[in-house]
């Protein structure tokens, strides 16, 4: 199985020209399909009275209260480009032209014509729903949604954001763990371990490290690399030190689990075993620190307390001319 996988991985880039050619062919095929589809000639019918039409039914007592929007930027009449500004189309700016939906009387058994409800049942493609929001919110280059990881996985703006509220809950850090954790379950559970960042107490949010709309780095980090993200708060680890520790310069994630760990200091493993994953060839690290080194026996400073860090306390780097062994 493994050999087969290796072969697959090795040949994947040999295969990529074929893959690209195939992709082009499919693109042409689908484009032609699109060309042959007749254009829509449906004319949109907007309501006669704008929001007044909608609010007759969709008031604060309805199943989906909407009135809080008037205490937000979206509901502001003077706000530039807002749906309720003088140039805006009010409710229909986002929910589309009311059309037959606002027919006053329905016959028995009849249901109202659907509108864009931003729900899973409305059978509208995710990117089309997001396009409605992006027609105003595309402006910032930092939030360029198209092609981002969440977009290509069919998420829409309203999967995370709420509009008919005075303040969108996701913008409050303390709500982000729960909201993002609905999909990123493992990350959420890690935040409930013994050693964590202050995520469950709400002093830190997912957005302190991740940029959910788009990012140039892997895992949608706010900075270009893992280390630069960590240095935003842990700048003392940035150095550059006179004596560097190679895995630290590579990535903090070589030793730490950022979302939470069962080991102290969010480590992936406890010392000395974490250190011995690399240091096993020279000097004392090659001892096997077993149960004979426990208290009440021949207690060893190599195993107990801070273990390797008892002496090598400057594990992130040392600026002392005699600190080549990261001891001072």
């Amino acid at each position, binding site marked *: 199985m493994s050999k087969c996988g290796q072969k697959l991985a090795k040949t994947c880039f040999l295969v990529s020209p074929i893959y690209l050619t195939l992709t082009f062919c*499919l693109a042409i095929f689908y484009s032609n399909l699109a060309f042959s589809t007749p254009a829509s000639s449906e004319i949109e019918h907007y309501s006669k009275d704008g929001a007044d039409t909608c609010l007759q039914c969709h008031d604060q007592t309805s199943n989906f209260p909407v009135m809080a929007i008037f205490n937000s*930027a979206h509901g502001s009449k003077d706000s530039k480009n807002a749906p309720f500004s003088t140039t805006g*189309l009010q409710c229909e700016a986002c929910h589309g032209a009311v059309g037959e939906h606002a027919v006053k009387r329905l016959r028995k058994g009849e249901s109202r014509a659907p509108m864009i409800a931003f729900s899973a049942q409305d059978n509208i493609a995710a990117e089309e729903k997001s396009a409605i929001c992006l027609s105003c919110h595309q402006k910032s280059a930092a939030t360029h949604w198209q092609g981002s990881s969440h977009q290509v996985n069919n998420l829409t703006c309203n999967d995370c954001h709420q509009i008919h509220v005075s303040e969108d809950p996701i913008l409050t850090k303390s709500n982000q763990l729960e909201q993002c954790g609905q999909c990123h379950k493992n990350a959420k559970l890690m935040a*409930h*371990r013994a050693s964590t960042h202050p995520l469950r107490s709400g002093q830190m949010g997912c957005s302190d490290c991740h940029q959910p709309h788009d990012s140039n780095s892997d895992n949608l980090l706010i900075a270009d690399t893992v280390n630069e993200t960590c240095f935003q708060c842990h700048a003392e680890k940035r150095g*550059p030190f006179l004596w560097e520790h190679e*895995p630290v310069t590579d990535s903090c994630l070589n030793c730490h689990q950022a979302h939470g760990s069962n080991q102290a200091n969010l480590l992936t493993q406890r010392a000395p075993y974490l250190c011995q994953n690399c240091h096993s060839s020279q000097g004392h690290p090659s001892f*096997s620190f077993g149960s004979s080194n426990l208290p009440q026996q021949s207690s060893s400073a190599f195993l107990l307390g801070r273990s390797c860090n*008892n002496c090598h306390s400057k594990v992130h780097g040392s600026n002392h*001319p005699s600190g080549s062994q990261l001891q001072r």
Partner: protein
Amino acid sequence: MKHLSLSIISILTLLAFSLGVSFAYADVPVNESEEQSIASPTSSSASTLTEAKPINADWLCEYCPKPKTLSGNVQVNFGYLSDDVYHFGHYSGIESNGNLFLSTKVNYLTEQGNYAKLLVDNAGLDSLNLASKLGYYGHYQFSFAYQEIPLRQNQALLTPFQQQNNTLVLPDSWQYLDQRTTPLETTTWRQFNSGVDWQKLSLSWRYFTDQNLDYAINYQKLKKSGIEQSSAAQILNASYLPLVIDEQTEQIDAQLNYQLNDLSINLSYFLSRFSNEYQSIHYENPFSSYVAGAEMAEIAHDPDNHAYKVRLKVNYQLLPGSSLKLYAAFGQMRQNNSLLPYSSNALLQQSLPNDSFDAKIATSDYALRFYSRWSSSLSFRAKYLFNQRDNQSQQYLFTPVFSDTYFAQPQQNTLYDTKKEQLSLTTFWRFLPSQQASIEFSKSSKTEHGISKHKTNNHGVTGSLLLQSEAGVQLTIRASHFNRDADLPMRLSTQLSDENPLLQRYNLAARVQNKLSLQVGKALNEQLYASVSGALSKQNYQASSLGLQHNHNYHYGADLSWQVSEKTTLSTYYQIEEITSQAKASDNEALWTNDTKEQVDSFGLTLDIKEWLDEKFALSLQAIISDGSSATTISTPSQDKLPEVNSVWQQFNLKFSYQINPQIQAQLQYQHQRLENDDFAVDYVDVNTVDNLLTFGAVSHHYQVNYFVLGLTYQF
């Protein structure tokens, strides 16, 4: 360079091709065949304006309420803690019984869109959170935030050291630890708590002009103060030292955004400056010195440093379905502190090769990304990333003085450079409106220069499938296989001893990685939604005879959400995670192996009843348990198992609220929290446990508390 050229050629070819297709595609009006199309008036702002005037000319919005000018709440809380528990104060700031704290939220909003918001949380505790925003919707915003985050490590630690300015001194009557015949007596030692208080101040200003320009300036100041646990070595001995921390980091991020039709440009400048009040600390050696003059030692604190970065992002939406994103950033990380002397030992003084170490690291980051949606079903993404860390510091030959006792072999500082490149090509195929498959081919390389030159090439494939049936079943499967080849390290420095060829460091070693995750969810009826999920991740380091051999991770669990009634919701989850790893160690062949197995069981339950007994009563219940264990087995070849390290964290929250009148609500909250942390390395290690180690005494992380909060909220 070969890969870079190949990447750019590939992306440009795709770009040219896609543009051709997309232009042709754009000429024809489109009706997304299988889905309901939403030709929204907002999809083009220009068309909105031209269409909007006749449409909304008579819209009065009589039913639209005026915004509530002043709204908010004030909450006064009285908390009672069953015990003084230092650990409970970690992050929460609550560590003594009987505390009064206040929270408030005030919103001010005018009909014209001017607003002011104020949030105060936990005023009266060490976890104060203060935030305010002022602005004019669509025009500008100024925000201010101040946050205190208390980090509590250990309570009642013991040390014989007294702090005198920048020096840790021992009592006059101190008897060297290695010359004692009786156990240490700690009654006269200083007691202290280790912990660091973080204070974070943020200011930001955003301004939106009418000329497609936005400006933003963010400033942040982070101050850390307190006492950290540290340690230092003296030949074969080591001592724990209480390290006084007084550090601050200032950051400025200035951004300029320009938007013209489908082009957006973002130019930003980021500056970060770290300063440390202490550059070093002197301490007396609690052990007898092997040579004269080694009674006092010095260790370096983290040096002052600064970094800057200039970033340029250009996003161009070629056509509604295609976008091109370019990103380029360059920066520097610098540190130029004066070098400390080799030793505090006056008998081992030697001149340094330079007075200071002018460290300089240049960073370069580039990204080129292209996304094209060729049809309602098919889209494509190409991504090229480049990151470089170029250490441009000087190299000097140092003659370190080991533990202020003897000169070690002269040694040159090593400069670590890293270069990472990644290219990925992904196709997304939505074969039905809610069914999508994707496949991604990815190749990355990492080159590292240090003591040796290492090069790794990582290539693999990732596939995903998102399915949704008409019956409401949602299935998500993701699988990936990656193979990392590593060339044998090429020796660069001749001054250090050879690296063992049997050992490849795991971040640079050849590796095979397989990942699989699966999630199935179904709405069982309109009220009940259930899902089960499982994932495995395996990393095997087959080419390395020593060091990490494998690292496997499995997790599986179930979730349930139940809308019991209109006012009652219940949700629960259970998940098990298992992590196993194996490392082999010795000098020249694998003489012993350590196997670590970690398991974490997580359980959570949340019940919300908005009307309980009476419409004025509400109840909310939350229980979280995270039960972890970690065990290490040593094979030497006989199996020798170390005690398990257990960590159980439990939290139970029960909250009642009673609406006394429309404005006033009373709340009673009960919280039970328990942390059990059995750790053989820490729990029984007091000052007499290890002869050559001076510790802070036996510490424990156990605690169990009951915390009650009575609160009164006034809503206005």
